[in-house]
C-alpha cells in the first residue's frame, strides 16, 4: 500500500477550558476512502476543520506528502490540494450548475480589449465532469436548486476533483439524503477513489461507511478509539465504539495492532 498523503499526528485542540480533541492520530492514503466515524459532539467537525486549515491545532503535527505542513487558513490547505465539501456550504441554489462549478475560478476568453467569461468552455467542461460522476445534466444552465441533494453533492465533488484535489474531505455528505440519493453519492465516492484521490468520509452512519470505506477510525469524546481495516471489523463493533468504546479491547486484537 502506498504511503499516506496526509498524516495527522497526536492532534490536540483546546477551545479555552474545553478540550475538543485530545490527541488524535489519523492518516489517509491516495486511492483509499478512510471513514471518520463518531457520534454528535465526538469532535469530528473540529478535526476536519483542523485538517482543512480553519482551526490551528493546539499541539500535534500535520504532514502532507511526507513534509511537515502548517495550514494558516483554508486557502493554504486548498492550495496544497485538500478540498472540503461541506454539507450545506457547497452550492448556491439560485445559480446555474456552471456558475457554481466555476465560482471563484471562472475561465475567461479575450474579446478585443475585454475579458469575458468563457461560457462555451465552462459549460462543456461542466457537462463532461458531471458525466464522469454519472450525472447527465439536461443543461448546464439549470439552477443548482433544481438538483437533488445527492446531485448537489456530486457537483461539489466533481468541482473539487476537477480543480486538482488530492485529498477530498466529505463532511456528512449522506446525512440529509434519502436511500437512493445516498447510493448515488456512495457510487460517486467510489469513482473518485478509483482515480487515485484520497478521501476522508465523515459520517455517523455505520452502514454508509461500511459500503465504501477501506479503513475506519472512530472518534469519541475527542479521542480516537482505533483504526480498523475493512473486513476486520463488523458494523456492530463500529456502532459500539461510537457509542462508548466498550468493545475497544476486542477490536485491538482484530486489527493487527493498527490502533
Amino acid at each position, binding site marked *: 500500500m502506498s504511503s499516506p498523503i496526509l498524516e495527522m499526528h497526536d492532534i490536540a485542540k483546546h477551545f479555552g477550558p474545553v478540550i475538543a480533541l485530545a490527541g488524535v492520530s489519523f492518516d489517509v492514503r491516495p486511492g483509499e476512502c478512510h471513514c471518520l466515524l463518531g457520534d454528535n459532539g465526538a469532535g469530528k467537525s473540529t478535526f476536519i476543520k483542523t485538517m482543512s486549515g480553519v482551526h490551528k491545532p493546539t499541539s500535534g503535527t500535520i504532514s502532507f506528502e511526507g513534509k511537515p505542513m502548517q495550514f494558516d487558513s483554508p486557502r493554504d490547505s486548498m492550495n496544497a490540494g485538500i478540498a472540503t465539501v461541506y454539507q450545506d456550504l457547497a452550492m448556491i*441554489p439560485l445559480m446555474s450548475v456552471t456558475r457554481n462549478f466555476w465560482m471563484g475560478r471562472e475561465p475567461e476568453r479575450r474579446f478585443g480589449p475585454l475579458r469575458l467569461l468563457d461560457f462555451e468552455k465552462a459549460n462543456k467542461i461542466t457537462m463532461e465532469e458531471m458525466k464522469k460522476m454519472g450525472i447527465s445534466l439536461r443543461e448546464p444552465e439549470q*439552477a443548482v436548486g433544481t438538483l437533488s441533494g445527492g446531485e448537489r453533492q456530486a457537483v461539489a465533488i466533481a468541482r473539487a476533483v476537477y480543480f486538482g484535489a488530492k485529498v477530498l474531505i466529505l463532511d456528512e455528505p449522506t446525512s440529509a439524503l434519502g436511500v437512493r440519493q445516498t447510493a448515488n453519492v456512495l457510487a460517486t465516492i467510489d469513482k473518485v477513489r478509483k482515480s487515485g484521490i484520497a478521501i476522508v468520509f465523515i459520517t455517523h452512519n455505520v452502514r454508509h461507511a461500511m459500503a465504501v470505506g477501506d479503513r475506519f477510525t472512530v472518534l469519541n469524546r475527542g479521542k480516537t478509539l482505533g483504526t480498523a481495516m475493512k473486513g476486520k471489523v463488523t458494523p456492530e463493533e463500529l456502532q459500539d465504539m461510537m457509542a462508548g468504546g466498550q468493545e475497544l479491547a476486542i477490536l485491538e486484537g482484530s486489527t493487527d495492532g493498527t490502533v
Partner: protein
Amino acid sequence: MADERLIQTSKLRKLMMRPELGAIAGTVLVFMLFLAIARDSGMFSPEGIQNWTVVSAQFAIIAVGAGLLMIAGEFDLSIGSMIGFSGIVIAILSVQMGWPVWMAIIAAFLLSVMIGAFTGYLVIKTGLPSFIVSLGFLYILRGLTIWLSILTTQKTIIGGVKQVAEGDWLAFLFGGKIFTGLFQWFGDMGWISTFVRGARKGQPVVEGIPMLVVWALVLIIFGHWLLTKTKFGNWIYASGGDAQAARYVGVPVNRVKILMFMFTAFCATVLATAQVMEFGSAAADRGLLKEFEAIISVVIGGALLTGGYGSVIGAALGALIFGVVQQGLFFAGVESSLFRVFLGTILIVAVIMNTYVRRMITGER
C-alpha cells in the same frame, strides 16, 4: 441518474424562471393599456414619447446601480440623498467657488464614489444590515446637503449653473442632446412637429436625444454585460446568493460589495449631474424618495430582496413601466395621486411573484 421527475419541466416553467419575464409581460401590458386609453392624448407623439422616455431614463439610471447592488446582496437607501448632495456639490464648486464646471463634476463624482465606498466599508466591517447603515447615510447626506447650501448661499436652491456651464465639454455630456441635426431634418421634412411661432420658429419641438437617455442606455448595457458575461458578474451573483459559500471558494466578497456601493453612488451622481445641467440649478431637496423608486424598479424587474438573483434588463424594464405609468396617467387625465396606489400594488404583486419564482428554482415548498 438525473431524477426523472424533474425532466418534465415545461418550456413555460423554464421561461418563467428568467428574472425579467414579469417585467417584459408588465411592459407589454402597460403599453397596451395606454395605447387603449391615452392614444389620442399626445402620449405617443414625439413630444409625448420624449416625456416618458426621459422620466423612465431617470429611473433606469439609478435602478441599474441599485439592481446590481441588490443582486450582490445589499441595499442602499441613501441614493436619493446622494442625488441631492452631488447636485449641490457641483453647484457650490462651480457657481459659488468659480471652479470650471468639468472640474466640479469630476470632484462631485470622486466625492460620491468615496462616500459609497465608505458606506460599503462600514457595512462589511460592522456586519450590520446595509439597510440600517445606508438609512444613516440617507439622513447624514441630506442634512449635509441642506447645511452646505444654506451655509454658502442662504438658500436651498443654487441657480446659475446654466451660465457657467455654457460650452463646457463635460457639462454637455450630461445636459446636452445628440442627433440634433437629424431631428432638425425630420422637422424640415415635416415628419415631426416644429415650432410655428416665436424665436425657435422652424425648430423641431423634440430637438434630439437627451444625454440622460444615452447615459441610461449605456449604463443598462454595461450593467447587463458585467452581470451576465463576465467573471465579476458571477462574483456579484455569488456574493448575494451566499456570501459564506462564495468566500469559501475564494470569491472576494467584500471587494465585490464595496465596489457595488461605489457603482450605486456613481449612478446617483450621473442622475444628479444630468438634472443640474438640465434645470441649470441644484436644489437641496432633489432626489427625495428616489432610493425607493429605484428599489421598486429593481423588484418589478424580478430581483429578489434577499440577493443573488435578478437582472439589469429587468430593472430597466421596471424603470420603463414606472415612467410610462407615471406620465401615462397624466396624459390620460387620471388623478395623479392614484399613481401611488398603483405603485404600492404593483410592488406587492411583484414581490409575491418573485418569491414564487424563487421557490420554483430552489425547490423549497
